[in-house]
């Protein structure tokens, strides 16, 4: 989609531009908490070799759990037992992003937009198992029910922070994080919120690990992982510290059943649309960050699309460091880009204009263009 949201005249508040700024972030990943440990891992060039999970229910599949995250310390013990792993990651990342961004617009103009493939897989499956295993199928734990819904982490984050503005949850498999960023940008440009804590979350569960294992869905050398990245987004132009600027976000679809070549072509088209939207040429891009490189078969589908636009060249692979985080992938890749701008981990610097893409199992594709604002 080429046309970008020219803001509707009657809805305009401050939103006279179509870019949004990242004014803070909260990240929990295999590298640790925040951007600095991510930069350290990339600077070191090697990451610890992933090992199979110690828990007995997991298959012999290398995993990268989130490190440096103690939910009781970050969130307090109150209410913790009613939270799924997804809830905990998201609530902590939103809190960190808020602390990083500092005070902002009023609570009524502040909201949360989270992406997730299907919510807490662990929460849903445990709840369903109770319906099969308890004496009666309805003898489930009622306090666990809200956690089975996809919108649980966004709703609970809003309660914790008293954000009464726009609150949304979107899905989209591997595109969930990119979808959340695109949705939030559309909302900010339309003037429906002033600040949106936007990101994506994915948890590591035995069932999920078996699905990836049995489906042989991971690329060789890629570990299954979890994580959450949340960014405080505001319409550009408010001033203040800006970590990065989202200049374009495009998504599209091509049915893989009609041929994987069509998916690559569709990806190339949405990348070109995104570049046009951002007013950039392929040669302006200093960093190309694929999102599907950890998924067997799909890495090649994505690379074909990228080659059609950029030709062969360097890609920033993140799956060897952070693992395959599926719905959270593009959001965590954005954290990797920002980590390089905050703590340059590449000799000669980490550039200033990044393209982040992904291609999902269902044939959905997307592209994000992020630029580093001029330092002043």
């Amino acid at each position, binding site marked *: *989609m080429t*046309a970008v*949201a*020219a*803001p509707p*005249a*009657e*809805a305009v508040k401050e939103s006279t531009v179509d870019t949004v700024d990242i004014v803070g972030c909260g990240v929990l990943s295999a590298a640790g908490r925040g951007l600095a440990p991510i930069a350290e891992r990339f600077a070191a060039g090697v990451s610890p070799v992933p090992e199979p999970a110690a828990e007995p*229910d997991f298959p012999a599949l290398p995993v990268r759990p989130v490190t440096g995250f103690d939910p009781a310390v970050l969130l307090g013990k109150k209410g913790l037992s009613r939270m799924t792993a997804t809830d905990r990651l998201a609530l902590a990342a939103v809190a960190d992003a808020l602390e990083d961004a500092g005070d902002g617009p009023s*609570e009524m103009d502040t909201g*949360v937009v989270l992406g997730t*493939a299907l919510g807490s897989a662990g929460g849903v*499956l445990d*709840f*369903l*198992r*109770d*319906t*099969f*295993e308890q004496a*009666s*199928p*309805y003898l*489930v*734990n*009622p306090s666990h*029910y*809200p956690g*089975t*819904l*996809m*919108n649980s982490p*966004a*709703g*609970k984050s809003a*309660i914790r922070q008293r*954000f*009464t503005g726009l*609150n*949304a949850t*979107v*899905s*989209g498999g591997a595109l969930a994080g990119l*979808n959340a960023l695109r*949705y939030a940008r*559309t909302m900010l440009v339309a003037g429906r919120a002033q600040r949106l804590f936007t990101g994506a979350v994915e948890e590591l569960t035995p069932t*999920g690990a*078996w*699905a990836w294992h*049995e*489906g042989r*869905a991971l690329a060789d050398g890629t570990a299954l992982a979890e994580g959450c990245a949340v960014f405080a987004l505001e319409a550009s132009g408010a001033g203040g510290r800006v970590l990065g600027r989202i200049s374009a976000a495009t*998504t*599209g*679809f091509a049915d893989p*059943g009609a041929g994987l070549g069509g998916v690559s072509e*569709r990806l190339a088209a949405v990348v070109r649309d995104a570049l046009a939207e951002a007013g950039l040429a392929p040669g302006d891009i200093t960093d190309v960050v694929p999102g599907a490189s950890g998924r067997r078969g799909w890495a090649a589908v994505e690379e074909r699309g990228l080659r059609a636009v950029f030709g062969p060249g360097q890609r920033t692979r993140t799956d060897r460091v952070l693992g395959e985080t599926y719905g959270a992938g593009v959001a965590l890749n954005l954290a990797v880009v920002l980590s390089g701008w905050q703590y340059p981990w590449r000799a000669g610097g980490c550039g200033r204009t990044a393209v982040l893409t992904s291609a*999902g*199992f269902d044939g*959905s594709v997307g592209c994000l263009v992020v630029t580093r604002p001029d330092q002043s």
Partner: protein
Amino acid sequence: MPEQAARRVVVTGLGAVSSLGNGAGALVAAVRAGRSGIGPIGQFDPAGFEHLLAGEVTDFVPEEHLRRLDPARWGRSGQFAAAAAHQAVRDSGAEPAALRSGRTVSVFGTTNGESQILERLAEKVSGLGPSAITGAAAGQADAGRIASAVAAELRLGGETLTVGTACAAANYALGYAFDLLRSGAADAALCGGADASNRATHAGFHRLGALAADVPRPFDADRDGIVTAEGGVALLLEPMETAVARGARIYAEVLGYGVTCDAVHMTNPDRDSIARCIQAAHRDAGVKPEEVDYICAHGTGTRANDATEVAAVRAVFGDRLPPISSLKSMLGHTMGAASGFGALLSCAAIHEGFLPPSATLRTLDPELGEGVDAVPGVARPADVRIVQNHGFAFGGNNAITLFGKVTDR
């Protein structure tokens, strides 16, 4: 990029897979007659439950609706959405090939995604442990496949987005599609919602004590809860200029929408937040309270929801309330599809001139206060120009859409 005036957005196609029939025509006729879609549970084994009714789609044969999707590879929610979207395109008279430009988006809301796939996975894990999971089955579980199913079936190339804001999700989907069309970011949208009858939802509401003894009776003095239900609904949205240029029948214009979050409690509704949502929707649509002819209520039939909803409406409208009724009296609670069915009936009410009924209402709850017209029994003829369509959800997600009659085409 040149500044572009906001485009007007209209609804030109309707589609439904429901317990009251397949196709918008069948559904609207059944609603006008106040018929019930509630019956015995058939989509999962109800043994051991004390509540045995649901609003299920009993006559859905996927092969009769889907040309491209293989029903063995797509979940029931996605099948519902794709079938409803097919109908909406046919109903609109739009040229299917024209929708394949890459600028037709698919935006659908859901509460539980592909819940039946997850249910089958859980049953396997329960019996055999997590190693019983197969990659192929798990690959069908993503909620995002609902919007993708529509795009695959209709060969659309545009954005696919599945919104997971529980029982307000279809209104969220409509709102997002509206913003994309209004700004020029998309040229057409198939949007709505879908959910399948499933064990987890039934057990959850059962345990919360929120299931009705028999049928749901929204606004009734003796109301005692919801009945879980399923269905899929789709609307074709396009810019008014496109619709007029091709001589399309226009059901209604999307005037605007509002969204708020309670940020108080995950399951209890909040009057002030809903009132704020109504005001946000009015502001966005440029509508004054006295101009609203009808409210298609969230109206679940629980004591808390209906009382809170009417109190919120009263907080905005004062003592002159427009007629307010609940489709859930007939369909049950179709979860993520619910506000999409509300949108479909809002369009039909404007186009055909009637107020949908609260079909099961016997004795209006006096505690709701004076001046509540919940349209008991069957539909009532009325000149309906502006409709307000409610969708509220666990998680504190509220979304309200506004539809209006087009009189100046």
